[in-house]
């Protein structure tokens, strides 16, 4: 159509500006640039004057596991007040793997990891483990007709391996006597991203089911058969909540905060245990732990003995260098002292905040090990604490 062509020409001509008029308008583009430049200058000024230059402020950075993130952020905030707004702790999350990479590259002062390092890794890099809290993974479900689901390890493994596909399977029936189970088929919901939660959950299944161990094994990401994948704990929580007849695994805190029912799990002693802070702490009470700079790779509180121990529990660790001085990170002595003080505070006073955020406080035996570890941290060869 000729109309279109005409209109196009029209707009083109409309845009033409006389040269002498244009000089002023041309300035506009540069005015925009100038404004941007002014913003930058102002920013640098504010940065130097009111914030960055504040005397005595120490910034510590950490990254890694998202599982303990709410607790670490709570600590950061409380400790900031505790130190009269002198020590700022940033925690970037990003997952256990990212945290380990970044502390190896020395871009962060501490890393969070749900999985312990291998013996060679921790000795090669000189990193120590500081278990800072405990967490539980629960089996959340959406089947309103079952008020109080009871499961055991092998059955959970068979559900997630798709050997059990309907709710009224005899194996589930045997664990829930007297409960009328629906005939619907079970939808499994799993993490689509690599995660510490999957690591803990698959570790438990591998421990209680040899079939799961040989077919899938423990890992941060597992190729689950025929399951709905969702990202992060919130993703799995929402998917379970909105998918009828589904079952999935999430951290305890997400189940409680979102009112999602979760199953009681049969523990090592044969009791059905509800995941709670007490039953999670109980899982850690009986284990023998290495020293902070020792080999933690075999530490495991899954399916641990104890009448009230919840079986799908795990430590989550903070990793720091045993010798805090190194040329790459340029960490100064003050920062090193503040890092150790912060962690000391976190494993003592900080534990009182665990409860409200649904983390299990550390048993006294673990706190003692952490004390020894923190006392052994050095800066240029001299102990910091």
């Amino acid at each position, binding site marked *: 159509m000729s109309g279109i062509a005409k209109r196009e020409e029209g707009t083109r001509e409309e845009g033409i500006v006389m040269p002498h*008029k244009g000089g002023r308008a041309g300035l506009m583009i540069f005015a925009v640039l100038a404004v941007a430049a002014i913003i930058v200058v102002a920013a640098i000024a504010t940065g130097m004057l009111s914030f960055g230059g504040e005397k005595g402020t120490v910034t510590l950075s950490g990254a890694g596991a998202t599982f303990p993130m709410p607790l670490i952020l709570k600590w950061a905030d409380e400790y900031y007040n505790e130190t009269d707004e002198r020590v700022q702790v940033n925690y970037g999350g990003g997952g256990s793997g990212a945290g380990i990479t970044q502390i190896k590259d020395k871009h962060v002062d501490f890393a969070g990891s749900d999985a312990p390092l291998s013996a060679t890794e921790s000795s090669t890099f000189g990193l120590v483990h500081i278990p800072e809290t405990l967490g539980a993974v629960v089996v959340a479900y959406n089947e309103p007709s079952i008020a109080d689901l009871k499961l055991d390890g092998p059955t959970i493994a068979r559900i997630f391996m798709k050997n059990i596909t309907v709710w009224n399977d005899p194996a589930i029936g045997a664990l829930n006597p007297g409960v009328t189970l629906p005939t619907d088929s079970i939808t499994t919901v799993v993490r689509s991203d690599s995660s510490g939660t999957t690591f803990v959950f698959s570790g438990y299944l591998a421990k209680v089911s040899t079939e799961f161990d040989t077919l899938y094994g423990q890992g941060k990401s597992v190729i689950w058969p025929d399951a709905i994948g969702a990202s992060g704990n919130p993703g799995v929580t929402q998917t379970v909540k909105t998918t009828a007849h589904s079952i999935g695994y999430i951290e305890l805190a997400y189940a409680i905060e979102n009112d999602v029912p979760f199953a009681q799990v049969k523990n090592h002693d044969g009791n059905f245990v509800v995941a709670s802070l007490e039953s999670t702490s109980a899982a850690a009470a009986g284990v023998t732990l290495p020293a902070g700079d020792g080999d933690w790779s075999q530490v495991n509180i899954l399916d641990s003995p104890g009448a009230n121990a919840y079986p799908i529990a795990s430590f989550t660790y903070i990793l720091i260098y045993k010798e805090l001085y190194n040329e790459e990170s340029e960490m100064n002595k003050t920062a090193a002292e503040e890092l150790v003080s912060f962690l000391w505070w976190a494993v003592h006073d900080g534990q009182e905040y665990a409860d409200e955020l649904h983390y299990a406080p550390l048993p006294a035996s673990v706190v003692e090990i952490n004390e020894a570890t923190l006392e052994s941290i050095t800066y240029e060869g001299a102990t910091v604490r």
Partner: protein
Amino acid sequence: MNNFKRRKLVNMLASGVALTCVVLAVVPLIYILIEVVRIGAPAIDWEFLTSRTKGTGEPGEGIGNAILGTLLLVGYASAIGLPIGIFTGIYVSEFGNNRFGETVRFFNDILANFPSIVIGLLAYALVVDYMDVGFSLIAGAFALAIIMIPIVANTTEEALRMVPNSLREGALALGVPRRRAVMRIMLVNAKAGVVTGSLLAVARIAGETAPLILTAFYSNYWSASPFEPIASLPQTIFRNYNSPSEVLLQQAWGAALVLITIVLAINISVRLLMRSRTKKSKAVKKTWLTRLSLRA
């Protein structure tokens, strides 16, 4: 007659399909806006806008430092990216009729479609790691600037190409130096396109999350230093979403509303500014056009 009826029917069908498509395209946009306002608005009050983030979901938490962080990141990134982008566009359009110009154009097109996470990774490897600046505002701004450059360069080039060739030739024929012809005639007539392109780029980077995770990191404190980690609105939304706290989830919607408002405000205000400028010069243009047509 039958044929006419059939054609009318086909016409109506086609219009119907087109209209349905328009509705389908617009509905999600309106839905998003309504949802963001519906859920986000109750979270917004003065304290929310002026307090810092904490990540704990307790009362007294806000997004003030994230708003400041986003403004600073966009400001720094624009200061780096806009001049480079605009001058690249000028070069490719006005001086790029050769092998080198073609190559620049080619790589610009590739860069424009690069996943932003890869650009974040580049900024991480180069600025954070190799140059050893560490996680910082400036590393984040560098990544965002690289995302801006191809967008600004491409739109600047397009805008300059829209300017009639006769203007360029006319200026040069009058003995105007090439530099002045480009800066005072070509660029001026292309300014609407250039400004629009710059705005598009600003709006695009204001909402970027992935490259910032690897570069600007995050800080729950008031920080404006270029060499310290800094918060940003998109990252606040992501972090709050990942938290188990219901309060923080609602604050994520609040932060989304603020982010959308900031982007829209920049957009609309500059557009209004541009329009009033154009109106003023309309009278001049008309006489000039009449003169041109008279001469022809």
